């Protein structure tokens, strides 16, 4: 045999295509080996480059979000002493008369809202160390405080009217421009007429920061406030609840239907045209652009069924339809991974087909199903386009009580903030919201990976 092989090579010695004669197996630089090695090196280099470019993109993407986003988690306060004078807050002496409820009604009335601004103004002049008789200066000082500050103060007083008459040392939310200045978005080098803070205000802010009258803190309101046109007061509260409701709906709709469909297709379906049609369908649905699901939701759930616009219920249903293929594909894979011997053993001891599936196969496939479901949920949580179609990008300033009340979602809130005009203030805010979203996604995906690692079973 060996002889044969050798003699074959011998007869085929002049390689086809190569120039015969000057290339032989014995001379040093044959077949352009150096050239070929160089080509090999180049090729490898291209591969490394491709991977590095992809990773660089990832770094830039995350870096740009985080470098802006961490500032969004900071809020700026003016620390003032507020004297809640009864003469302004309670001119009718209702508190002394003991009729607290009446006082609440009075304070809640929009007509009396001015009282809170009147109370705040002197406190701010005091903290800034300005003489209120200089009207121009006074106006510029007042502009340092957020216009949401009176609202917040009102909420506080309404919660406890007995505060009236006391002097409170408390933080007031600073205006969005002050906040943006401290975060470096408003720059001193910009000509005065091109920025919204005057030189006088900037000096004042610098001075107050030095004295500790303006401080930064962690922005817990980002998670609790509703959205607002005033960036300093805008929060993700409604969006978080809306997204939470939608995840519940997706879990309640897509998981049972997805698992049921996979069980049928994997365990019971006869090989016929209908089964084939369903399978082709599911594969195609997985690749349908997400916005098309939104159009479906708009046409079917809202226009035809008359479900309310902007409701997490509708958003959740749309996302369920979108997640269904993901869950079905994952569930089928994990059902398939359960060896037939399990089923045969169950049938052998007298279980019905249904019992063998529900009592034996399904529990063994559960970790895989859970992993697939979490990944599907993560996909649904980040989806925006279909939600725009069903009105989840509305401007909602009231907390939804039911899944049918108007709400937004994390991604659609990000979309809304990304389109606000006041980029100086909304850039960090939007990035912070994105970080919150990514955090949730990371946790979900990490859980899925852990589940897979922990329960993965090779039969």
């Amino acid at each position, binding site marked *: 045999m060996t002889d044969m092989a050798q003699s074959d090579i011998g007869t085929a010695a002049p390689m086809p295509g190569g120039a015969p004669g000057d290339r032989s197996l014995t001379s040093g630089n044959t*077949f352009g080996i150096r050239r070929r*090695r160089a*080509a090999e090196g180049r*090729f*490898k280099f*291209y*591969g*490394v*480059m*491709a*991977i590095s470019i*992809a*990773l660089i*993109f*990832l770094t*830039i*993407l995350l870096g*740009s*979000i985080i470098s802006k986003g961490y500032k969004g988690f900071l809020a700026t306060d003016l620390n003032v002493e507020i004297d809640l004078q009864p003469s302004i807050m309670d001119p009718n002496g209702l508190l002394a008369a003991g009729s607290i409820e009446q006082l609440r009604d009075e304070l809640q009335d929009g007509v009396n809202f001015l009282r809170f601004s009147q109370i705040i103004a002197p406190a701010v002049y005091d903290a800034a160390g300005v003489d209120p008789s200089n009207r121009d200066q006074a106006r510029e000082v007042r502009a340092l405080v957020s216009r949401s500050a009176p609202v917040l103060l009102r909420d506080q007083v309404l919660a406890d009217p007995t505060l009236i008459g006391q002097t409170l040392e408390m933080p007031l939310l600073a205006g969005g421009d002050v906040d943006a200045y401290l975060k470096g978005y408003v720059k001193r080098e910009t000509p005065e007429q091109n920025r919204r803070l005057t030189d006088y205000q900037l000096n004042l802010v610098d001075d107050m920061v030095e004295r500790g009258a303006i401080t930064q803190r962690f922005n817990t309101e980002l998670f609790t406030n509703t959205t607002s046109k005033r960036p300093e007061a805008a929060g993700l509260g409604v969006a978080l609840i809306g997204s939470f409701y939608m995840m519940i709906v997706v879990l309640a709709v897509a998981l*049972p*239907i997805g698992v*049921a*469909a996979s069980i*049928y297709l994997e365990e*019971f379906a006869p090989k016929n045209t209908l089964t084939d*049609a*369903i399978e082709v369908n599911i*594969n*195609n649905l997985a*690749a*349908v*652009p997400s*916005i*098309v*699901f939104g*159009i*479906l939701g*708009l*046409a*079917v759930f809202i226009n035809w069924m*008359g479900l309310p616009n902007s409701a997490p219920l509708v958003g959740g249903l749309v996302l369920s*339809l979108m997640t*269904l293929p993901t869950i079905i594909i994952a569930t089928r894979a994990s059902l398939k991974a359960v060896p037939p011997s399990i089923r045969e053993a169950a049938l052998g001891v007298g279980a*019905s087909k249904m019992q063998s599936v529900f009592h034996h196969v399904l529990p063994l496939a559960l970790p895989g199903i859970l992993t697939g479901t979490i990944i599907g949920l*993560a996909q649904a949580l*980040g989806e*925006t386009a279909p939600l*725009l*179609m069903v009105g989840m*990008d509305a401007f909602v300033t009231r907390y939804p009580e039911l899944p049918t009340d108007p709400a937004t979602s994390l*991604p659609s809130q*990000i*979309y809304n903030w990304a*389109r606000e005009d006041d*980029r100086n203030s909304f850039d960090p805010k939007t*990035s912070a919201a*994105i970080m919150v*979203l*990514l955090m949730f996604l990371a946790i979900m*995906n990490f859980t899925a990976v852990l589940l897979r690692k922990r329960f993965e079973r090779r039969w």
Partner: protein
Amino acid sequence: MSAFTLLGVLVALSLIGFVLGRARAVALHNAGEKLHSRAGYHGGLVSIATFLPAFVVMSVALIAQPEIEYNVASANFPAEVLEDPIRTDLEVSATRNVAEGLELVDEATRSRLQFGLIEVRSALGEVGVALPANVTNYMIIGARDVLDFRDTAKPIVFGVCVAIALLALLLTWRSIGSRLRARNMVENVVRTGLLLASGIAILTTLGIVLSMLWESIRFFEMVPPQHFFFGTTWNPGFVNVGETELAGSGGRGSFGLLPLLWGTAYISLIALLIAVPIGLLSAVYMSEFAGPRTRAYAKPLIEVLAGVPTIVYGFFALVTVGPFIRDMINTIPGMSVGASSVATAGVVMGIMIIPFVSSLSDDIINAVPQSLRDGAYGLGATKAETVRQVILPAALPGIVGAVLLAASRAIGETMIVVLAAGATAKIDINPFEAMTTVTVKIVSQLTGDVEFTSPQALVAFALGLTLFVVTLVMNIVALRIVRKYREQYE
């Protein structure tokens, strides 16, 4: 809310049915009777029998309700309104609003009202329902009829459903005995349920196609198809809520699809130019050259790119890539471009689909049989030569399929282009110009105050249908290529 109450009652009844059925089975068993199935199955059977028929009746009633109410509401409409179906639709929905408002008014006020327009308006104003300006007397009468209908129909439906549930409960409960094969019946119901669940997938597709087809047909009744498919100007104009006739240029907007398709194709092309080389080369490197350690780190990291939501890419394009590209281009003398451009959207979309291309190609390259590689190595080829001359040609059909799949994803992508591509529909070669895509226009035509009878809104459904068909064809072709390619090596 009444539907929820009824549902609650039915669920409660079916739970009671379960307990009763199970108890009876246990009692019979203890009395020495030989039952076919275990007690739980008897309980389950009673429970299902109690719930299902009543639930079906309830669902039918709920589905029929709007249709009947439509007829009730429009019964008193004058003939000239009924002649115009679009106007009837509008007025019926206004009538429904009036009815919703009247429901909020308390009973006493409602009966005291003379149903003169002014009184109704002020009464509804007090409960916070604003009536549309064009409410007329017959709508208010219609609204009252709708409410009357609801008041009579609701108790009837409620009673019928509960009666059916109770009857079924009683009958199945009594039928429990040695001859009843409860388990088989329960299993048949469950099996049907499983079949129905897998039918949801078909229903969804059907829903997508039908809903979009329906609205598209209405659109094509107003705008001829050739103007849509071959039109080169996109200028839909505006129509205010409440108007049905066209405003805008000469009373008729122009709905040319071509500029949108051009923008879509151009952006996708740029995206593919970025994603395909990077994705393919990294897949090749990962599967042929990289050691297990590199693979263990690099692969999940690249896949992180796939897990980032598209809105994040959109924001990234809007605030980082867009201004960067703008500043770069504007340093060239004589160039002046904005931040929204085809290039911005294309580059960011390209980044987004890198992991898509790389993981698909990775699968495909791994499916090339080891024997082909061994053959090439045996002939003395280097790794790079093997990849270039053996693996890639062998994997080519699969890679083409992968690229098609990636392209269909790029075409359907929405958030990046909404935020970063711009809104001007035009056909231009310059990649630094803002252009727009099919998905952008779907979003802009369907968000905000929309009148669903105007071509301005309906065009979105035609666009959606176009998008659906294009991506579907690409997917089917791609999946077929990939499958054929896999079979080739199996």
